[in-house]
């Protein structure tokens, strides 16, 4: 049973992304939104763990609007997929449940 994990807090100030990465399964997906998009930076505290989990096949998304609103469009690491609210809705359908970390 696959889960979509949503992270809306920056890993620079909260541990939700770190906690999520510890339990995220191979079939799961991760969506970074709001200040959670700071997790998409190559310099983020969870960058290494995130890179490892992407290599295992987990898809990691970031909400484009929230990335742009913070001026991070040029700074997000390779391998992170950008999406919008229509994509968010679609992701919530493709996964069996949605776990919000906040």
């Amino acid at each position, binding site marked *: 049973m696959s889960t979509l994990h949503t992270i809306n807090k920056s890993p620079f100030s909260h541990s939700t992304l770190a906690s999520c990465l510890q339990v995220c399964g191979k079939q799961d997906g991760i969506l970074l939104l709001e200040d959670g998009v700071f997790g998409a930076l190559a310099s983020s505290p969870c960058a290494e763990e995130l890179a490892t989990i992407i290599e295992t096949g987990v898809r990691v998304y970031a909400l484009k609007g929230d990335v742009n609103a913070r001026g991070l469009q040029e700074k997000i690491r390779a391998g992170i997929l950008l999406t919008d*609210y229509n994509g968010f*809705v679609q992701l919530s*359908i493709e996964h069996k449940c949605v776990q*919000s970390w906040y």
Partner: protein
Amino acid sequence: MIFSLAIYAAPYTSQASDSAYRFALALLENGHTLYRVFFYQDGVHTASSLNTPPQDEIHFTHNWQALAQQHNIDLIVCIAAALKRGLLNKQEASRYDKPAFNLAEGFEISGLGQLVDAAVISDRLITFGG
């Protein structure tokens, strides 16, 4: 597909209530159904009829009222979370002998059972935390 949303975040405090509203718009635009929005913890502040943001800022109370009317969505506010934060309907104001009530039209005060019901009835329950 049937969706319900649980909003734990206060309006204007974090971005979460804005995210929830945008998600609601997107799912409706994509032809899905929004069965219920459950306002819990600080999220109950969304339902105050006294919310008066500046005219050029988002009015979450009005936005949810309009969306609910247009798409027949249940807007439920947790009674325990609401009362302790000073959000009352006419009946509760009278029960506790309060001079006024402030639950906005279109919102309904009810119990946590309505969140469980939303989880059972809906294909997806999405939580927006503050």
